């Protein structure tokens, strides 16, 4: 199959997936025990009369039956309108766009960090199987893999922000600094702890899989043959190991985008970092249905694009997949 029909088929699947996802999420949300009006009013229920509650429900169209609301919402979405967020009182697309831009730096840094670091550690461990370096890396990975991200985040805040004072306790920019005065260094400085926390989840995964694959590869006949020819160390890895061990790493790395989105929710909570994760929590807790559904669609798209990218990269990296399918 050529690349174009391959992508077309994928896009068709994506459309079907999104439609199913919308129906399912809307159905689930409509069974949520949270009353959206009450979630919106919150502590003000001491002053908001039942007439006003009805007015709020009417204003936001919450007094209509779920099916009607879904059809209304669905047709608006098809026209490119994701609706208005109840808690932000702004268009959902605008809120998601703004929040995603803030999350993007965090997510991509963490993602790259976990990919590069994980792959490097895995490769080292694999090449040096059984040595102290291998044991150290394995120990490190097992520890990370069994550590909840939010707990680690809290630990980092306590040690590096509160005790040592090396890093800020939270936020994405220095307190009280005007936007024009905020430098790139400021932003990176505020990014380090949350990005580190977020990347940790991926590092262990990628490293351990890469290591295992490399161990398998090194036990193969062609490596034996290469060694017999005198190849060793970096040269051996570069010529015969890299491409072979890249596949599991690529798979895990791109599949981890979904975990990354889940992870940002926690990391942003711990570090008060203003991103999509925070908005998700607020939307969920306060029953802001349009925003919640908007985020669901958006993150589904993101995960889908990640998987698609992995599929395409397979074809580039591994000639067997490319040729095997077209045959």
């Amino acid at each position, binding site marked *: 199959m050529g690349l174009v029909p391959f992508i077309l088929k994928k896009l068709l699947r994506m459309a079907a997936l999104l439609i199913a996802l919308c129906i399912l999420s809307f159905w689930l949300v409509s069974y949520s*025990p*949270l009353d959206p009006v009450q979630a*919106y009013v919150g502590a003000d229920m*001491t002053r908001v009369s039942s007439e006003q509650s009805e007015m*709020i429900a009417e204003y936001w169209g919450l007094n209509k039956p779920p099916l009607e609301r879904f059809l209304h919402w669905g047709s608006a979405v098809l026209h490119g309108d994701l609706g208005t967020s109840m808690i932000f009182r*702004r268009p959902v697309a605008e809120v998601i766009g703004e929040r995603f831009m803030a999350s993007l730096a965090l997510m991509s840094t963490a993602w790259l960090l976990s990919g590069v670091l994980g792959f490097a550690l895995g490769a080292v461990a694999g090449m040096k199987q059984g040595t102290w370096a291998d044991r150290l890396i394995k120990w490190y990975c097992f520890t990370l893999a069994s550590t909840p991200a939010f707990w680690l985040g809290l630990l980092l805040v306590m040690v590096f922000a509160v005790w040592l004072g090396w890093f800020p306790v939270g936020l994405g920019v220095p*307190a*009280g600094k005007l936007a024009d005065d905020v430098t790139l260094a400021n932003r990176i400085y505020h990014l380090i702890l949350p990005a580190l926390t977020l990347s940790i989840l991926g590092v262990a995964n990628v490293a351990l899989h890469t290591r295992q694959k490399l161990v398998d590869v090194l036990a193969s006949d062609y490596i034996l043959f290469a060694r017999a020819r005198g190849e060793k160390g970096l040269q051996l890895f570069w010529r015969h190991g890299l491409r072979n061990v890249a596949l599991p790493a690529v798979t895990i790395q791109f599949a981890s985008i979904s975990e990354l989105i889940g992870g940002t929710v926690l990391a942003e909570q711990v570090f*008060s970092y*203003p991103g999509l994760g925070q908005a998700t929590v607020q939307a969920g807790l306060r029953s802001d249905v349009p925003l919640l559904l908007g985020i669901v669609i958006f993150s589904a798209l993101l995960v889908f694009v990640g998987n698609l990218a992995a599929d395409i990269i397979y074809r580039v990296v591994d000639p067997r997949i490319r040729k095997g399918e077209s045959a």
Partner: protein
Amino acid sequence: MLGKWYAKPIAAIMAMVLLLAAGCAPDKNQGTGAEAEKKKDELILATGYEPEDGFDPTTGWGRYGSPLFQSTLLKRDKDLKIVNDLATGYEVSDDGLVWTVKLRSDVKFSDGQPLTADDVAYTYDTASKSGSVIDLTVLKSVEAVDPFTVKFTLVHPQSTFVNILVATGIVPKHAHGEDYAKKPIGSGPYKLVQWDAGQQLIVEANPEYYGPKSAFKKLTFLFLKEDAAYAAAKAGEVDMAFVLPNAAKQQVPGMHLVTVNSVDNRGILFPVVKAGGATKDGAPVGNDVTADIAIRKAINIAIDRKKLVEGIFDGFGTPAYSVADGMPWWNPDTVIEDTDFDQAGKILAEAGWKDADGDGILEKGSLKAEFTLVYQADDQSRQSLAIAAADMIRPLGINIKVVGGSWDDIARMMHSNAVLFGWGSYDPLEMYNLYSSKTAGIGWYNTGFYANPAVDEYMEKALKATTEEEALGYWKKAQWDGKTGFSAKGDAPWAWLVNRQHLYLVRDGLDIGQPKIQPHGHGWPITDNIVEWSWKK
């Protein structure tokens, strides 16, 4: 061993991380001494959650604490008395329906335009249509009579309308567009400089402000949760932080703890009618045990409120005797002697409750003295309160079964079971809503179907009163007039337990004046007197 091929890249990465850390670190203000010296005219505060929908009073901004950017017609002084702000005075017609407010003529918005009656009318008109937490269902119409006179016409007399005039900031008609919530313009003490959504709000003093000048040129509000605010305080990054009781026990160098009393209260509601009824939605109404006034009174008298405060809120609270302790409309006669088991036992015995079968639980005929108390399951302090109260009452021979539930569960159970609720507001309308026979079974109000014609009459009179003083007198009588009332001395439809205290860590040397009793909700209310804050000389 590290002299291998992989040593170089690893060393390079480590060097890079260290460089980054070192290169960025000097940006941070080190040393609190020098820091305080430098920013005498600036404050960084972590005292509240972010208002996600922005800074537009017509959708609810500023109803707690200071609206910062806008000002209100009236305000409450530190003794909670109503005083003029934008208004120079107000009059209520004899039938209580028409409110006429005169405005100051010297007020300008921060963009230099004058504030007139048109802006006031526009603000209230817009707010009433916004479908938000601002409840203006009582407002029939509002009009500008002349440039500095506004006339409000109500649907029915409501003296508590004055609280709306206290809580609603005035927006400029000429500059109230789509973006207003993000870029507010108003006549308040501060101007917005920058809002980083999800992170912080930076404001500076508004030179056009007609009131006393703020001692600070610039304020930064960080939107952190209580635990993050505490961490920021420990790291020396903020001048003020709101904290929870568990964190408040620890010392933070350079800061001291300020405790502020509140009417953020918790209490037990009892259904006061006998079982058998049902609401429109089919939820059962009434409970035979709590319908007996002896049970409700005995619980009120036997509870050790001080112990609850000590045990559950680490001492950061006060005993609660009514829904409005310390408010101007509160009747101090509602305070009762509690922890009195002898008296409670006597009341129960006189009402015919005795333990005939010796199982430790009282009976009256075939009725056992036990009922269910439901609380909001995800609130740990409510759970602790419910369990502790039940344990305290058990020796009396009353068995309270404690059950947690979602608000949805509570909505189904609240008419036929006791409920642990939290209320507390700057508006006596809340009292009406909780105790009037007219609100029985409506929403979350008066879920116990309490009704007392004398109380109803006092409260109706309070609503129809045309002056604040007159209204306050009636509100107090509704609680206890010497013979009857809705307090624990009277019909005791509730057992109020505790008022929480709100806790703030404040930088040593910062004078935040005398904060007034705060309503339900931790955080923004502390900004109420923010223009009075200053460094101690």
